[in-house]
Structures are given as structure tokens and as C-alpha cells.
């Protein structure tokens, strides 16, 4: 339980080893990913226990989104392996990962503006009385889902284009929650959210936590919210997980300290490069 400080973080980036025998639903081991000359992920080791909510922090470009895309089957890793429920898997596609119980919610990109709320809710999982859609069933269920969550929407029949960013995000999350996924990946679910809508999403995640059988990975920028909702926090820096602690064992001050430290180090590095060996700022 040492506090990483700026000097050691660079040399000792290894996260805590996955606990042997723990009921991990998902483990990523030594994941590496390159895009041409850019190394997005170096050596990612991540584990997710059943019913756990894991917060994934990190600067823009640290590799959070790349990791998420690999975990949901949108992209494939160059090296390393993914272990799902104790078995190594290779995700062929988002559909394939979804069929194995992994669902992802992107930052509100996933909704179709031209479709109604309830059609979005059931897109590609339509309730059908062949060959026709059972719109009535879908409307009823959508109303029910949204009521459970406490999202206020004038009508489930309105187009999602007419909704606010937060409402859209809430619908996307509600959709994923009701997709019977066992692992939910949420990509910045709190971005562009009003206070109330943010609270709705946080409550949704809490409900999931209470269910106990759904594991959640949340990418977020707001450390306070992350600490509040997550069981455990991982920090990605330059393609590696450099920090892995239970929320109870860390604090906002510590997280801030690490990130600021990284920024100072980067700044000092740049100074050195520019000035040919200037003093390190610390």
C-alpha cells in the first residue's frame, strides 16, 4: 500500500497481481496494442471480479478507450490474452462479445436520432410478432425501464433527436442494463451530463451493484464520482496500469497527486528536451 510518487511511478508501473483463485469474470493479461508507430497499450493487466464496479482513470490518450474497444470486441489486441470466466477468448466482433455477455455504452454515439426512444431501446433486439414489430410491447417495456431509472421523458414515442445529451446517455445506459449483459463497459457515461442526469446514471450503476451479478467498468474523468461509485480504481498512464487500489484505500487527494505528479514530470521532461537538460520541476 505504498503511495506511488513521481520518482518511482516511472520505474515501478506494475499493478497488483490478479489474486489467484478470485472469482474474476474478466481478466486482461499483458495486453499490447500498436497503431503504426504509436504504442497505445504496452502491458495492460486488468481484472474484474463478479459484481464489481471498476473505475478506469487516465489522461486523454493514455489508452483507456483503446482498452475498452479491445474488451468489447471492436478491436483486437496485438499481444496478450483475454480470459472470460476462466476461459481464454478471442472476440471476433462486438456482436460476438455481446453474445458472451459483454455490452458497451459509448458516449451517446449509439443512438439513432431518427428513431423513437422505444425503437432505440430495442434496436436489434426488437420484440416481434413475426413479421411485424410489437410496438405496443416495446413501448410498455421502455416506459417501465425508464420509470425504474427515473428518467423523465415526455413520450417514449418522440425521436431521440429531441432529447438532451443526458437523457440520451441515460437511454443508452438503460438499454445496456436491460440487455442481460454480465459485464458492462461504460465509456464516460457522465460526460456532458447535468447534475440530475449524472445522478441518474450513478443510481443506475448502484442498482446494478446491488444486483450483484453484473460487473461494470466505468471510464470517467471526475475522480470524486468515481471514488463514490466504484469498488476499485485503476489508473492508466501511457498504456500501462500504474495504480490499482480499492476505493476505500485511496483518496481524492492521492489520485490528484498522482495525476499532477505525472503532469509535472512530463513538463520537466519537455523542459529538459528543450533546454538540453534543465532542472526537474518538483
Amino acid at each position, binding site marked *: 500500500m505504498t503511495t506511488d510518487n513521481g520518482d518511482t511511478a516511472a520505474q515501478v508501473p506494475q499493478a497488483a497481481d490478479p489474486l489467484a483463485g478470485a472469482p474474476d469474470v474478466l481478466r486482461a493479461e499483458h495486453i499490447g496494442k500498436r497503431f503504426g508507430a504509436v504504442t497505445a497499450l504496452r502491458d495492460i493487466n486488468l481484472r474484474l471480479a463478479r459484481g464489481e464496479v471498476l473505475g478506469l482513470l487516465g489522461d486523454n490518450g493514455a489508452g483507456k478507450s483503446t482498452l475498452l474497444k479491445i474488451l468489447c470486441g*471492436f478491436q483486437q489486441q496485438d499481444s496478450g490474452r483475454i480470459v472470460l470466466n476462466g476461459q481464454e477468448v478471442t472476440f471476433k466482433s*462486438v*456482436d460476438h462479445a*455481446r453474445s458472451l455477455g459483454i455490452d*458497451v455504452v*459509448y458516449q451517446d*454515439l*449509439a*443512438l*439513432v*436520432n*431518427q*428513431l423513437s426512444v422505444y*425503437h432505440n431501446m430495442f*434496436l*436489434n433486439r*426488437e420484440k*416481434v410478432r413475426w*413479421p*411485424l*414489430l410489437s*410496438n405496443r410491447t416495446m413501448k410498455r417495456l421502455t416506459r417501465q425501464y425508464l420509470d425504474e431509472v427515473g428518467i423523465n421523458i415526455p413520450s417514449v414515442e*418522440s*425521436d431521440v*433527436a*429531441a432529447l438532451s445529451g443526458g437523457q440520451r446517455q441515460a437511454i443508452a445506459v438503460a438499454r445496456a442494463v436491460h440487455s442481460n449483459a454480465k459485464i458492462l463497459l461504460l465509456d464516460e457515461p457522465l460526460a456532458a451530463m447535468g447534475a440530475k442526469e449524472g445522478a441518474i446514471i450513478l443510481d443506475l450503476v448502484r442498482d446494478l451493484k446491488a444486483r450483484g451479478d453484473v460487473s461494470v467498468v466505468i471510464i470517467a474523468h471526475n475522480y470524486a464520482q468515481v471514488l463514490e461509485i466504484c469498488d476499485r480504481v485503476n489508473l492508466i498512464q501511457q498504456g500501462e496500469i500504474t495504480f490499482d487500489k480499492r476505493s476505500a484505500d485511496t483518496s481524492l487527494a492521492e489520485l490528484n497527486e498522482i495525476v499532477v505528479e505525472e503532469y509535472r514530470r512530463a513538463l520537466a521532461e519537455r523542459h529538459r528536451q528543450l533546454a538540453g537538460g534543465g532542472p526537474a520541476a518538483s
Partner: protein
Amino acid sequence: MSNTVQRAPGVAGQQPEPGTTGNVWRYLRQAGLFMAKQREATVFLVVVLLIVYFGLISSAGRPVFFTKPDLVNLSIIAAPIMIIAYGEVLLLICGEIDLSVGFIYAFTPFIMYFLITYYHFPAFLGIIVAILLVGGGIGWVNAFLTVTLGLPSFVATLGTGFIIGGLTLTMGHGEQAPIPPSALGIGDWFGQANGFAQIIWAAILLVVFHILLRQTPWGLHTIAVGGNALGAREAGVNLARIKFGNFMLTGILGGLAGVQTAFQTNLIDTYSGGAAYQPMFYAVAAAVIGGTAMLGGSGTMIGAFLGAAVLAILIDGFAVIGVSAFPLQIFFGGAILIAMIANVQLARLRVQGRVR
């Protein structure tokens, strides 16, 4: 006005008038709002106005417009545009376009002719095979070029259109062909004997394709693919399947309309000199006049049906009132533009109303 008289019989002139004009104003506003909300309603209004206009003009001189022979003529003009437009609506909604469908329209009857005359297919089988083989096959090729090889559909179907046009001229030696005698009986079903057969087909297909678009997962996925391709893919919608299907449906509709027109006119035409572009352009224009967005994601079958009606009434109406063939196209283009401007501006109003 009758209200006014009843309420205040003595002073029919001035005092009640604010109330009356208020009522009229409110009705107008409500009608306006309805028009703004229902995009088909606008086009329907245009259809009615055009009928009234041409009706009045032509009845002044010689009452031709909207008589039975004229209705037959209208139907013959409108039906193929409508049938092809249903396919184009599906394609436009999912973000594609088919410029080759007019050539499919011209090519299919020739294949039917060859199958029945030279390969001794039974007439019915020959018709069905020609429609499915040519329409579905070329639709598949269009989709392959667009989806699998990644060409823009505008270019892909331009290319296939030229090729099919060339094939039609080559195989037909640039000459018209007769309807095969063995197909004459069955041709009644495709509009040979009855001038209204084709428009009945168009009406039935309107119902079928309206339901397909609005009430089935296929229609929903088509809108999703055109509205937000990335989101649709993330939801697991199979983009390729939707686009292949819609290209093939469009081809099949083009083939069907072509065979029908061949029976209707008792003639298999080669449509040389780019004449085969015309049905396609009319169909796309009908779809767009009916409120289908060129950018994908939205469109309606009823709108396309009404849009085709607008075009047909313009074509027929100008002929009936005796506008010379030369300036006809000037009016025609102007009418299309006016219809489009009304649509775009009303759509803007709709969006504003929705956001508020």
C-alpha cells in the same frame, strides 16, 4: 360566417367579426401545424391543388383532365414511377442510391423475351425468373460494388447502368421486340388489358412497402443504418445484409415495373439514347418530393407515392391543357423546385417545433 349570422343576426356586419376571424385564423393555424407535422400532408395538398388547377383550366376549353381515358393515362405514367420509387426510398433511407434501376427496367423485359422465346420457358416462369434474376442479380452486383468493394453507390450504379444499357442494346440489336405470344394471356395480370392494373399493383405495393418500412425490424434497421451507421453497427445491426437486401429489392421492383410497362405498351423497348434514365430520375424525384432525405435516415413510402402522383399530374396535366412540348420541361422543373422548397422549409419548421 354562418356562425356570425346565427349569433348576432341583427348586426351581421361588424361586432362579431373579431371572433370570426379569430376562429378562421385558429383553424388555419391548426391546419398549418398539421401540415407542418405530417410531411405527407403537404404533398397531398399539392396533389389536390394540382388536380383542381388542371381541372379548372381544362374544363374551360375541353373537359379532358380527370376523365376516364385521362385517368388511365395518369395511371400509366404514375405507376412505374411509384413502384421504382419504393425501392429508391429504401435505398435513400439507408444512405445509398441506385442510378441503374431504369436500365434494369429496360433490360428485364428483354431477358423475359429471350427466356420465353428462345429457351422455351413457360410464360409465367419466364416472367418471374427474369424479374428475380435481372432485378435481384443486378441489385446484388450494385450492393457488392458498394458494400464489399466500397465504391460510392452513385458511381457504382452509374457504371452498372451503362453496362446494362449497352447489354440491352446489344442483345436486342437496338430494335424493339414484341411480347411473346405465349405470354399474352398472363400479361393481363401485369396490366396488359386493363389500364388500371399497374396502378393497382402500385397501391398494393405501397401498403406492402409501407408496412415493411414502418412495422418490421427490416425497416427499423434500414433507418438505423442510414441515420447512424456506427450506432447501428454497435447495436449489432448487419449493415451489409440491409444494404444488399435493399439494392436487390430496388432491382426487383425495377424489373417488375419494366415488365409491366412492356405488357402495357405491348412492346419491349430498348430505351436507347439514355431514355432509361428517365424512370429512375422520376422515381428519385418522387421520393425526394415526398420528403425522403438525400442524406439518409428518413423517408416515407406514402410520400413517394404522392410525389409520383405530383409528377404524373404535371406531365399529364400540361399535356392536357396544351402546353407545347418545348417549354413543358421548364414548368416541370419549376414545379419540382417549388415542391422541394416547400418541403425543406416545412421540415425546418418541424425541427424547430420539435426542439422547442
